[in-house]
């Protein structure tokens, strides 16, 4: 990673602008990143919410084998060209034993700097790698130090930023978990935050469900520590941090919802294994599960057919459970 980080002499803090792509881990660390640079006095610019143009441009830039989320990310990076000097692309390998990230996050800085090697942008990165004793604090502080900030100032900025992110997280989790107590049909959307919160691919699905009177709860907004622990009840060997959070969240709340929509993008390596495992192990709990895989298509008919019929099934099932039996004939 060192070859990507620029030598300190080149930085001019007052004029430099760091671009943050509104994609992938932005939905997990957005507050942390923006606050961190704000505390250091570095200007940031965040790309616009995903639209068709960003997605199309990203697909053109990305390798064909990459997942849709990665393609969208490349579109966000491209949209930042000319608006900033550096683009923040962290490398996150793991958080400890059986807590690894998808390999895409490990490769991301290298992938971005290779795809955009002709463009006038430079990649700013920090490196989280627990086997090298690089946790988030050390990694981000090292990045700031390499930019020419003092160790003390960097540390202080990190602390404030981390606190802000923690507060935002617990607020979001509290708000989300409160929805389990709402009346009506409760549906859990299980997918990575960068899919569910994406303006172009995930948001329309949430919107559709909300418009149809469903109480939508997100699986990824959960007490992460508890979810990691609970995920072992479904699979003691699952090793991906993001998948474990979602799986754990479903295990924790299995009695609180009427159905699950497993939302993934094509081709997601993690979901292809984890979602398959959940479908097969579901023989025990018999929760209705709808598996949906999104790709770069603009038609929404297939998506709507699936969601609409799934909701019908949930409603019919609920009527049976309530003892009403079959619908009264007119």
């Amino acid at each position, binding site marked *: 990673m060192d070859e990507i980080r620029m030598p300190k002499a080149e930085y001019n803090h007052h004029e430099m602008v760091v671009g943050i792509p509104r994609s992938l881990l932005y939905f997990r660390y957005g507050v942390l990143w923006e606050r961190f640079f704000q505390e250091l006095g570095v200007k940031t610019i965040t790309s616009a919410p995903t639209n068709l143009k*960003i997605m199309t441009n990203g697909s053109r830039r990305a390798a064909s084998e990459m997942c849709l989320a990665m393609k969208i990310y490349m579109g966000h990076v491209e949209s930042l060209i000319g608006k900033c000097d550096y683009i923040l692309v962290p490398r996150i390998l793991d958080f400890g034993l059986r807590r690894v990230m998808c390999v895409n996050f490990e490769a991301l800085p290298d992938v971005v700097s290779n795809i955009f090697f002709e463009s006038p942008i430079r990649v700013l990165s920090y490196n989280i790698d627990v086997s090298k004793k690089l946790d988030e604090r050390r990694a981000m502080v090292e990045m700031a130090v390499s930019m020419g900030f003092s160790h003390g100032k960097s540390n202080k900025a990190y602390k404030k930023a981390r606190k802000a992110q923690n507060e935002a997280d617990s607020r979001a989790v509290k708000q989300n978990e409160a929805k389990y107590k709402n009346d009506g049909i409760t549906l859990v959307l299980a997918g990575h935050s960068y899919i569910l919160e994406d303006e*172009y691919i995930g948001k*329309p699905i949430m919107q559709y469900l909300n418009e149809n009177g469903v109480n939508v709860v997100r699986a990824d907004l959960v007490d992460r520590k508890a979810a990691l622990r609970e995920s072992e009840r479904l699979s003691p060997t699952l090793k991906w941090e993001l998948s474990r959070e979602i799986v754990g969240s479903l295990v924790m709340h299995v009695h609180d919802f009427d159905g699950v929509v497993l939302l993934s993008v094509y081709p997601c390596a993690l979901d292809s294994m984890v979602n398959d495992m959940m479908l097969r192990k579901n*023989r025990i709990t018999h929760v*209705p599960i*709808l598996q949906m895989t999104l790709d770069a298509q603009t038609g929404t008919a297939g998506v709507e*057919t699936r969601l609409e019929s*799934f909701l019908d*099934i949930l409603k*019919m099932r609920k009527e049976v459970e309530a003892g009403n039996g079959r619908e009264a004939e007119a």
Partner: protein
Amino acid sequence: MEDVYMGIDVGSISTKGVIITKENKILSSEYIWTEGNPIGAVKKLVRLLEKQFDKENYRIVATGTTGSARKLVGTVLSATVVKNEITAHAVGTTTFHPDVRTILEIGGQDSKIILVENGVAVDYAMNTLCAAGTGAFLSSQSARLGIPVEDMGEIAVKSQHPTQIAARCTVFAESDLVHKIQVGHTKEDIVAGLCQAVVGNYLNNVGKGKKIQSPVVFQGGVSKNIGVVKAFENQLGCPIIVDPDGHLMGAIGAAILARRNKERRVFNFDVEDMEFITREINCGGCPNNCEIICVYRNGEMIDSWGNRCERGDVAARKAANPNAAAV
């Protein structure tokens, strides 16, 4: 004058229509090819239904549409109910087979499984957004082999040793198929292999993790293929019921749903004389550039859809009436 109900199911391959009474008696039914023209097919269908229909004693008070063109056709027919095909199939089948536990369905571009408990659908799965192992797969392979798709079933049951064919993806299956032909497998074995492959693919993808319990009803266009029915019986180890009206279940379900709905609108077969056209416009209001479908009846726009936000409505109105938008 007795009130009756019409159900129309417009799929990618075929268009089905029924008119039923309160007691689920079928008054008229028709089954034609869609041929890539849902509006034309539905107009033809309505004309054929009208011929069998006794206008003196009955009147249609509610219309339901289903199938992949349900929205478009629902607009054309001013339907009272527009419902997805899974719900329609579940409702139709459980009405005629109240004890059914599992409904298998393989259509032109979709395949699905519906699990039923006490006459009510409780769980289902559908193929992900890819047509591997559906009717489209079988008909493209039949074209390659030079066998009419209707005859495939009869040929398949003659085979003693079905050939192993990968059905995961149409492209792979095709290259596998060509290879097997060239090394000397007989046509019967290959066709039987294709039927087996469709079933294997279905059970491994759509039926994954689902408990398939008897009685099992198999429907959709592919259920007319006896080779696939036999392959299901082999792999599931239980009898498979194929209803002679199986292809009409979606339309029947749509008619029943129209009856259950409170809305009433008398249908008087005048759509045959109207001219319907659709036009696609690009909104251009933002980088999403949504594709909006506008439906015109006798030159007047009656509906539009496809836009993600309200900017699209403005664009559609502009397309409907360019002069008014300029004011």
